[in-house]
C-alpha cells in the first residue's frame, strides 16, 4: 500500500498561482517519485501537469488541498509547502 501525505495550503503571494509559479510548482513536484493531486472547489488535478495546475486559477488567498501518494510523499509535501510559504521566490 502506498503512503499518503496530505496538507492544506493557502496561496499567499500577490500574483497567485500564475504561469511562472505554476511551472515552479510542477517542476518541484516532478522531482519526486510520488504522485501529487491538488484540489480546489471539488476539482482535482494532477500536480505534475502544468495545464492542470494553471487550470486551478488559484489567486491570492485560495485554499488548495494537496494529496501526495508514493514512497517520498512526505518530502514532496514538505517541498511544496516550502515553495508556497516562500511565495515562489517572489518579493510579495
Amino acid at each position, binding site marked *: 500500500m502506498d503512503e499518503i501525505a496530505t496538507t492544506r495550503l493557502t496561496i499567499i503571494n500577490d500574483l497567485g498561482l500564475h504561469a511562472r509559479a505554476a511551472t515552479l510548482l510542477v517542476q518541484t513536484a516532478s522531482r519526486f517519485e510520488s504522485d501529487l493531486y491538488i484540489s480546489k472547489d471539488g*476539482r482535482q488535478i494532477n500536480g505534475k*501537469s502544468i*495545464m492542470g495546475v494553471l*487550470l486551478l486559477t488559484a489567486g491570492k488567498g485560495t485554499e488548495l488541498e494537496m494529496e501526495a501518494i508514493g514512497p517520498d510523499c512526505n518530502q514532496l509535501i514538505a517541498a511544496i509547502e516550502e515553495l508556497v510559504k516562500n511565495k515562489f521566490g517572489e518579493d510579495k
Partner: protein
Amino acid sequence: MEVSTLLRALRVELGLELIAGKSGLDRRITGPGIQKSGLALTGFNHMVKPGLIQVLGKTEIDYLWSLEPKNRYEASNHLISCSPPGIIVTRSLDIPEQLIRSATDSRVPLMSTGLRSALLIESLHKFLANRMAQVRSIHGVLVDVFGVGILLIGKSGIGKSECALELVMRGHRLVADDVVDVNFVPPSSIIGAGNELIRHNMEIRGLGIINIKDLFGVAAIRESKKIQLVINVEDWDNSKVYDRLGIVTQTHSILGVSIPRIDIPVRPGRSLTSIIEVAARNQILKVMGHHSALEFQHKIDASVEHSVQVVRGISELPHSLPAGIIDDDAE
C-alpha cells in the same frame, strides 16, 4: 439550472415561447425528468415531483377546455400549486386564460412550443440530462482516432501528449490534453471534453504550450467525444504479463461506466502512435462484430481439434470448421 437558462438555450431549437410567469424565470430545475401531469389537473397531484418541468399536451389542454370556465382556474391551480419550475404546452395549443392567470399569479413560467409532446419530451430530456450530468476531471489525453474516442492515461511524462501530437499530425483530432472533463450521459455514455480555459492547448516538453487549433486548423480538433476505449500507457515492466492474444477484455471504470481498456507498454522502438491507430481500427472491427483475436483463437482451436481427429484416424473434417481452415489445408 434556472428556467431562464433552458429558455435561452432552447428558444430557437424547440420554438419555445414564454406565455406567462416571467418573474419566475429564476426557478430551478433540479432533475432531468419530465412529467406529463394530466392527473394533477384533477387535484390528484401527489405524484408531481418538485423541480421537474411539466408538459401539458393535447389531452391535458382539451381536458381544461372541457371544464366549465369557472372550474378551469381551480384545475390549473391544482398543478400550479405544486410550484413546478416551469410548464410547457405543446402543439401551440390554445391555452385557457385561466391557466395563464394561475401561472402569472404564482410566478410559474408558462411556455408554449409547436412541437408534439413526444418530440418535446425527448429533446428536452436529452438537453437536461446532458447539462445536469456529473462532471469530473481526469488526467489524460482524449483523441478521436478514426472516429473512435480514445482516452490515453498513464503517469506524467510517459509521452501521452507527444503521442497525441503525432496522432494529430497524422490527421486525427485532439479533444483535450492533460485535463479531460468527463460527464455521464445516461444510459451508459461517458462524454469527454476539454476545459474551456485550456481547450486545445497542449504542453509538449521542450516546446512549452502550443495551440493545436492555431497550428493545425479546425479539422484537427473536436469539442467533445464519447470515450470508447481507454489506453493505459505504461513503462515496460519485465515482471508484468502483457496480453499477448487480446482475448481478455479489461475495463476501466469512469463515473461507474465500464469502458474497454488496453495496457500498452512503451519502449524505444515501439511506435505508440501506430499501435494506437491499430487499436482504434481493431475497436471499430469489434464494434462491427469482428473480434480478430477471438476469430484467430477459434481458427486455431478448430485446427487443433482437426489434428487430434487425424491422429485418431478420423479423416473427415467436421462441418463446424470456420471458413478459411479448409482453404488453408487445400493449399
